[in-house]
């Protein structure tokens, strides 16, 4: 433990904003899959499966970077200092888990005018540097933009 803590303080590399975002040359999200019922979670670890109750049968899987917009909202009023408007969306991934993220490169006004065009829109994950943390690490976040 002590060595890990030491490594953490000397390392100045980027850090993921949430623990299930895997950085490196091919950034992707990591799922935690129940070996009994197949439910997929976005946590790194959990006590048991909340769908079936099974313990100790979890394995990590690499989640697809491509998904489809299920629903969304356009936020116009947020906490002080947060730039608006932004689009929040629920993205369904093919592995059977959903992710919440901002939609990038989609016009908020258009999203409100034509909701139908938003549903099932194919999107892909992109990462970006969100901020620098107190220890000087770049904090890497992810969002989704329309697939080409």
């Amino acid at each position, binding site marked *: 433990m002590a060595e890990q803590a030491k490594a953490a303080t000397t390392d100045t590399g980027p850090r993921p*904003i*949430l623990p299930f975002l895997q950085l490196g040359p091919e950034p992707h999200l990591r799922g935690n899959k129940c070996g009994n019922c197949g*439910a997929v*979670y*976005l946590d790194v670890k959990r006590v048991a499966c*909340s*769908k079936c109750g099974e313990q100790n049968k979890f394995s990590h899987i690499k989640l697809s970077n491509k998904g489809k917009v*299920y*629903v*969304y*909202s*356009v*936020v*116009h*009023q*947020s*906490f002080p200092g*947060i*730039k*608006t408007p*932004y689009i*929040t*969306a*629920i993205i*369904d991934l093919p592995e*059977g*888990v*959903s*992710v*919440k*993220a*901002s939609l990038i490169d989609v016009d908020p006004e258009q*999203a*409100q005018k034509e*909701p139908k065009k938003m*549903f099932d829109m194919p999107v892909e994950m992109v990462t970006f540097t*969100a*901020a*620098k*943390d*107190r220890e000087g690490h770049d*904090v890497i*976040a*992810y*969002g989704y933009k329309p697939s080409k």
Partner: protein
Amino acid sequence: MRNVYVLGTGMIKFGRYPEKTVPELGGDAAEIALKDAGIKIQDVEMFACGNLYQSNAMVGQRILQQIGQTGIPVINVSNACATGSTAFREAYMSIAAGMYDCAMAVGVEQMGKQGLLGGGGGGTDPAYATEGRMGSGLMPAVFGQAGIEHMRNYGTKLEHFAKISVKSHKHATKNPFSQYRNEVTLEDVMNARMVAFPNTLYMCCPTGDGAAAAILVSEDKLKQWAGGRKRARIAASVLTSDPYTDRDLTLPDVSTLTQRASKKAYEMAGVGPKDIALTELHDCFATAELVHYENLFLCDKGTAGEFIDKKGGVHPDLGGFSPVNVSGGLLSKGHPLGATGVANICEVVWHLTEDERAKDRQVKGAKVGQAHVIGLGSACTVHILTV
């Protein structure tokens, strides 16, 4: 299980009371309820107190320190927006189970002009905050998505959500306990500032302060104390949590746990949706009210838009049917979180017992009513009351 009745109710007008403390607000509502019941605090054997923002600060005991320290058992309840209704249910269960004959439930909250709820993330270092960077956890957006999901599945229009706001604001003009009592037109709602699509300002409930209380009694005590006054019976009291559904951990599923609670409540009360004379439901946002019309089986799945177009949810005095939130709902009446669950039971009781506090908006001849609350995270209560 024994029959349980609501002997007395108390509610202060929802609004903003910066000069008062939480125990004072709760104490005020409790005193009104005790007077309405015609009993004294010394007659109360158990007290369940609902409050969210001071849930670590013994609010129930502090209320008794204001109105009478009788040494009775007190439990402090916190269950998100279902806090007050869960406290009410604790009081109900203690009597139904035969443990006590007289219990008090108080719901109280002081929020002031708190602004937006939800969002967050990031722990102690703001560099890890997710709001705005990775979507939104703010309540107007979360519940906005519930409305968008209905648009996606059933082609529901923005006007449908807006009509709910118009309806509830109109209802509120008749309720002196409501935080806001202004009427709005469809244009006002549609053109108001967008908070989180599709929820405009008038489709979002305000924050504020409030308190409500209820005195619950067994049949024996009812006979002893009611003195022939008309009192409502709690025909069903149900609490559910969110079961596993596919997207629930990412997009809170407010529907499944409500449907389950509703089915159970109808079964427990031995009534159906057609028997319900009035419904107070959890309209934290107009989008939420729309989906709950279906979740409480007031209309068939996918038909909430049609229900609204036919004036479903509108007070019969205004030409509607299946009235919903004749109090003005959370949208107008306000939503001091812990108080809401007790306050909407008070509203239903007032109609059933022809209490003069509901006189200008009385749903005539009401025999059965229901109160529904959702606390995100999630908890759902449904109470059905009868006379």
